[in-house]
């Protein structure tokens, strides 16, 4: 009992410390990446303090953190004091609590622990291994994060913050539906809500879900990007329209909580994309697929998982500097008119294959995953054709009434 507690505590401390460090250094990565895309140099000067050693700017995140913490923290007089304080705390805690069920590797052999501890199974690299509803837990805690944004916008008592909060409320609720539909296909195919079971299924089968359910993969990736409010979807905090959106009035450590929570959301989204669709810690030929592992394989699995996550994060960063922001009506149209119907199509395809697929595959002489992959690919092609032909996101923005242009004859209009 005590040993379980100690192991769990060590895992929690490791995960939290790793996440905070990762969030800080990902800010640096993002800034250097932006500089690379825009043909600048980016932050490359801060190194070891009080020396001239630069270290490629690796000291920048520490300097940023120190600045955030020691900066004068100003609370405007017109805000709702309690909610102004609670809101960033809510979003930060919710963003960190998601990682209780997200595996950051496969298992570790238990042989390094003292024999007297009585740990007989390999140690699962997830803070709360026994949760049977892992996927729903992620959803539940993720939906709490909306409060941080909505309440922050409301408590700031400022029109721009308020608009940002309202926008984010609408956006996050809308995109939770396609997110859920994307997950549903994976859960149907795996037959479990546990994230480690979902990885194990992909590792044993050798076929990643992004190949089996390409439609679900695309929907989930887009919806996850929107849930993390990354740039094509960053309407809650559009600098050009809303100053800073919901965190306009925030400064100091509260602002830092918002920014770190935002990065944690992106890291969560990347972890989920990798775990649900990109095979988790599995890579063909080098990681194996079983539970009994040696130390090199166990560490290799962690490395593979983290490398994949970093790849997805870099893709998010590239997307940020590649696409302009959506207009709000386009955002809503994309969510409700495109992603949700396509998500339903994906669920129907996977459910139909789960019911009739094995018999069909046996008759045609192909394997079960190959059949699902073919069906999924066909569904993707068909959906792409239908969406491209019907263009449901296009809206008519022409003026409803006749507009008087300067060169029109005034006499002509008034007669």
């Amino acid at each position, binding site marked *: 009992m005590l040993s379980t507690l100690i192991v769990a505590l060590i895992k929690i401390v490791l995960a939290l410390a790793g996440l905070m460090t990762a969030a800080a250094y990902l800010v640096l990565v993002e800034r250097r990446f932006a500089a690379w895309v825009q043909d600048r140099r980016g932050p490359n000067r801060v190194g070891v303090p009080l020396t001239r050693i630069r270290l490629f700017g690796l000291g920048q995140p520490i300097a940023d953190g120190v600045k955030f913490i020691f900066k004068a923290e100003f609370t405007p007089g017109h805000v709702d004091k309690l909610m102004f304080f609670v809101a960033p705390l809510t979003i930060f805690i919710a963003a960190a609590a998601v990682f209780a069920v997200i595996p950051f590797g496969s298992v570790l052999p238990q042989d390094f622990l003292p024999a007297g501890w009585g740990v007989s199974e390999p140690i699962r690299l997830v803070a709360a291994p026994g949760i049977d509803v892992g996927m729903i837990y992620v959803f539940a*805690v993720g939906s709490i994060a909306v409060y941080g944004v909505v309440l922050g916008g409301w408590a700031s008592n400022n029109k721009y913050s308020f608009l940002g909060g309202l926008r984010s409320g609408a956006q996050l609720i809308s995109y939770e539906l396609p997110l859920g539909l994307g997950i549903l296909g994976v859960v149907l195919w795996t037959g479990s809500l546990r994230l480690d079971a979902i990885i194990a299924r992909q590792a044993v089968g050798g076929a990643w879900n992004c190949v089996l359910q390409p439609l679900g993969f695309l929907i989930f990736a887009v919806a996850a990007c929107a849930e993390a409010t990354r740039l094509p979807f960053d309407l809650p905090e559009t600098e050009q329209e809303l100053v800073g959106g919901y965190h306009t009035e925030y400064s100091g450590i509260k602002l830092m909580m918002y920014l770190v929570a935002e990065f944690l959301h992106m890291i969560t989204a990347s972890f989920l994309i990798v775990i649900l669709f990109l095979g988790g810690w599995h890579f063909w030929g080098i990681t194996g697929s079983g539970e009994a592992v040696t130390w090199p394989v166990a560490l290799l699995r962690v490395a593979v998982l983290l490398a994949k996550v970093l790849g997805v994060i870099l893709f998010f960063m590239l997307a940020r500097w590649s696409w302009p922001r959506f207009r709000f009506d386009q955002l809503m149209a994309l969510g409700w008119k495109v992603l949700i119907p396509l998500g339903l199509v994906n669920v129907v395809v996977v459910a139909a294959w789960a019911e009739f697929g094995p018999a069909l595959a046996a008759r045609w002489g192909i394997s079960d995953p190959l059949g699902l992959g073919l069906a999924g690919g066909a569904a993707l092609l068909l959906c792409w054709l239908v969406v491209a032909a019907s263009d449901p996101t296009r809206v008519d923005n022409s003026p409803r009434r006749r507009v008087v242009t300067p060169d029109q004859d005034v006499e002509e209009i008034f007669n």
Partner: protein
Amino acid sequence: MKDSHTIWILATLLGSLGLWLMLPRGGRRGRLAGAALAVVALGLAASQTPRLGTWTAEGIFAALALVTVVAAAAAVTCRNPVYCAIWFGLTLLGTAGLFLLVGAQFLAAATVVVYAGAILVTFLFVLMLAQPEGKAAYDRASWEAMLSAVTGVVLIGVLSITVGGALTAPPPEAAPSAAAVQAGVLRPQHVAALGTELFGRHLIAIQIAGTLLLTALVGAAVIIAQGKNTKTDSINSKELKTDEE
């Protein structure tokens, strides 16, 4: 009448009186006294709940229950609608924690997803849209404070006497055995069993509930579509008139 019944009735009466005093009724008189009464009632009720065995289980249960009950009281007594909604959210989180404590993982997660994550956010949305300045008098006082307090008395009283009585003196055949709990909510395939139950035995009920929700959705869509039509029509007719003139 047993002693425990007397204490339960006393606790219920005190609690309801306290709640009635705490409800926002215009003036601020008696709110502190109401809070004191409610605390006394809570203590009385706590003295009657059965012990759980280990002190960790006891402590976790007490903390969660306290959060749930205090947040629920605050949700009905707060003057600011946004704060009421937040306190209600805290009640839901506490309830989810209690579900988790007894092993009902799915119910806990679903409570948070459905109530705290979707419905309550919609509440907040409407509250904020309806009164950005949050100063409407009719939302800051409770309607029919006496009636709601009496309803509370009846509901809490009946529930606590039946449930509390059953808990303090459990008949040996009614209490689920540890083995039954292990086979039920605590087994690893708990969610799969729940799904089988829901979509097997209760399929008709699920379908009816789904249809009901769909009806509400279609109704909302119809209302929105009508509003849009009339607006466009009026603009069009104005345009036509201008053209004719």
